[in-house]
């Protein structure tokens, strides 16, 4: 026997100590040097972490039909390490099936050092899975899908100017952007252990559920909006005009049921259109309303008790004021008109003469109460407040011009709400475009819940103004017979205003023609305002915007089943 027991014992201890110090060194290496990396590596083994994308809320019309909706979609991604070998064939296959560009994806499929490349984003999930399965069947490896919700605008250009659009990863315009906080929701996360593609039961698993976006309900009516847009487009095209807009408002609630813009764009493909068409001109175009505004001037005058619809006014052929000549759109000698006649025939001179009875500053107060010069804040981006000159700038000349709707600027919704005041018994009701309430990106709360009302003119003044406005569409007076809806009592007012050109900042000889009105005149249901910018066919408010008004009004009355009131139409005298 070699060695003594003592020697063997010592030798054993040394061996054990050596082994233990190796373990110790490894322990220090694992725990001391870079513990996190190893922990992560251990966790990554068999652990899957996925983002649970929140579903973006829909934008709905008043009947719940979607103007914008989110659809389960997938992105197709590639692992270049696996796809590089057969990249050209795979690129050809994908280009054929997924509507992606061959030359864009080919370098991605070959990208060196990368293990993740996007091939196609926002593909409907059925198509994406089909394509990936087909690719696998054809022997291509390295394709995969990830969740990627698709935004769809089923109605295309209908309401697009308000709804807006989204880019690949962010909301870019319209409601999509204004109400992004509400619509977007919050993505969730899920982490779990998998084995062979299945979740391991009792394995580690954490889930942070996604908070889906909340739907945005608008007051728009998809079908009415579509009809208004088509009528408007036809009107603008036929008049060879620059642009146009139409507002359909529910008289009693101020809900905007259609807000049409032309030119417009297709929300599914916004980049094909010029940038200036992507907003809402009805809200951002500032223009002078022209004679439509006379309805506000004269109703204020009646409210202040200074005139009645039968007040007799002598209208000379032209009126010299402060060295300027005010004329009418039609040539006449000295004529004798009632106030109703002044409005029905749209006489500038008559209006100026009548408004001489205002106390100083009175007209401005009335117009401010009608909402001119203030934003409507209905949730549309880029709204102009319009221009109501400050009291200090009200010279006699300015006052005269404002009385018939020049030297004062508005946006279309503002003006529609002002005319709606006459329709709604003299009470101005805030227009709204959002059902309920919603918070915009600059923190304003908008919607029907926030609607306020205020009395601007007396019920009697509103009623009498409506009766005067009825004479405008009367075929006997023949200013705008094209705006009539046969069988109904329609109150309206034409407008043909000189337009300030973009280039010179002066009246450039172009016109803004418009028609605002409501029906049935004795119990109004809808207020509609149609504006056409720069018609080149020589038409005025009655001949261009009037027929469009009539068509949209007929459609709205039929759609909402508003029968004629069957009362006697107004026969206020026009002359004396």
């Amino acid at each position, binding site marked *: 026997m070699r060695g003594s027991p003592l020697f063997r014992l010592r030798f054993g201890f040394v061996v054990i100590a050596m082994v233990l110090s190796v373990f110790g060194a490894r322990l220090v290496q694992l725990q001391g040097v870079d513990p996190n990396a190893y922990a992560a590596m251990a966790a990554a083994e068999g652990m899957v972490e996925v983002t649970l994308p929140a579903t973006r809320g829909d934008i709905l019309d008043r009947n719940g039909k979607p103007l914008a909706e989110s659809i389960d979609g997938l992105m197709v991604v590639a692992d270049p390490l696996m796809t590089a070998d057969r990249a050209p064939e795979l690129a050809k296959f994908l280009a054929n099936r997924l509507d992606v560009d061959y030359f864009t994806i080919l370098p991605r499929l070959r990208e060196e050092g990368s293990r993740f490349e996007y091939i196609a984003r926002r593909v*409907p999930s059925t198509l994406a899975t089909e394509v990936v399965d087909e690719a696998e069947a054809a022997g291509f490896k390295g394709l995969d899908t990830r969740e990627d919700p698709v935004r769809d605008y089923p109605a*295309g250009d209908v309401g697009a100017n308000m709804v807006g659009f989204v880019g690949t990863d962010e909301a870019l315009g319209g409601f999509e952007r204004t109400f992004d906080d509400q619509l977007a929701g919050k993505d969730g996360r899920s982490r779990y252990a998998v084995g062979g593609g299945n979740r391991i039961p009792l394995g580690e698993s954490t889930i942070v559920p996604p908070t889906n976006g909340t739907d945005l309900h608008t007051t728009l009516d998809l079908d009415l909006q579509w009809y208004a847009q088509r009528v408007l487009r036809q009107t603008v095209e036929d008049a060879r005009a620059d642009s146009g807009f139409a507002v359909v408002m529910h008289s009693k609630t101020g809900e905007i049921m259609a807000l049409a813009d032309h030119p417009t764009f297709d929300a599914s493909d916004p980049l094909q259109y010029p940038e200036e068409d992507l907003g809402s001109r009805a809200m951002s175009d500032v223009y002078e309303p022209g004679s439509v505004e006379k309805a506000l001037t004269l109703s204020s005058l009646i409210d202040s008790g200074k005139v009645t619809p039968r007040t007799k006014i002598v209208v000379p052929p032209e009126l010299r004021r402060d060295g300027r000549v005010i004329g009418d759109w039609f040539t006449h000698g000295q004529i004798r008109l009632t106030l109703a006649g002044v409005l029905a025939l749209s006489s500038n001179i008559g209006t100026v003469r009548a408004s001489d009875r205002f106390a100083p500053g009175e007209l401005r107060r009335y117009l401010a109460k009608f909402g001119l010069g203030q934003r409507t804040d209905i949730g549309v981006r880029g709204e102009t407040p319009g221009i109501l000159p400050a009291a200090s700038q009200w010279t006699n000349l300015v006052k005269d011009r404002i009385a018939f709707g020049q030297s004062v600027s508005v946006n279309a919704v503002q003006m529609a709400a002002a005319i709606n005041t006459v329709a709604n018994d003299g009470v101005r009701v805030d227009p709204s475009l959002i059902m309920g309430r919603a918070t915009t990106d600059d923190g304003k709360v908008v919607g029907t819940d926030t609607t306020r009302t205020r009395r601007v003119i007396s019920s009697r003044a509103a009623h009498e103004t409506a009766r005067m406005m009825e004479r405008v569409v009367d075929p006997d007076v023949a200013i705008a017979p094209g705006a009539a809806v046969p*069988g109904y009592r329609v109150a309206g007012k034409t407008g043909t205003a000189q337009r300030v050109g973009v280039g010179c900042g002066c009246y450039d000889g172009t016109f803004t023609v418009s028609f605002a009105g409501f029906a049935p005149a004795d119990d109004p249901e809808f207020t509609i305002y149609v504006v056409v910018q720069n018609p080149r066919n020589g038409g005025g408010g009655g001949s261009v915007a009037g027929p469009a008004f009539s*068509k949209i009004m007929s459609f709205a009355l*039929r759609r909402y089943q508003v029968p004629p009131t069957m009362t006697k139409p107004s026969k206020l005298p026009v002359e004396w």
Partner: protein
Amino acid sequence: MSNGSAQLRTPIRIGRGIAEAAVERARLTVVPRRRTRAARMPFVMLVSLVLLGGVIGLLLFNTSMQQASFAATALEEQANTLTAREQTLQMELEVLRDPQRVAEHAQNLGMVPSANPVFLRLADGKVLGKRVPATPANGLRVRPLPPAKPAVLTPAPIVHKVTADPADTGRASDGNGGSHGRNDANASGQHARR
């Protein structure tokens, strides 16, 4: 008891024989407590059964959990497929009920929007509103006009005004021989029909 044993033992040491003592002891011994020994087998069986049951139960439980996990994955996949299908159908429905599409179809069938809303009051059978027949003039243009061609593509027709020179008429008519011929043919045809 201890007293008794002391009394008994003393005589032994004093004078009795060992055999007697042995007898004595045999007669009076402390009886060991009787142990009832349970049979070993049933206990072992029980324990192994419990153990086996536990293991098998655990195995079955685990298997069923796995099974459930497979089923869950399969069902989840099915749910995804069905959701996708539902959404595809929903999209199709929206395409079908898109007002633009409906209008184009209606127009292809020769329909026009009604000219004027008219109502029938059921209470007394009275017709409210004015009946206006809808004509093609009521038609709505549902498609945009084609974009205007740039002027380069639609050049104005070039018109050359030529005043006929009386001295030149002969040659001009020679040049138009073909058209003359056609006119003649027409004329002769008409003659023939008459």
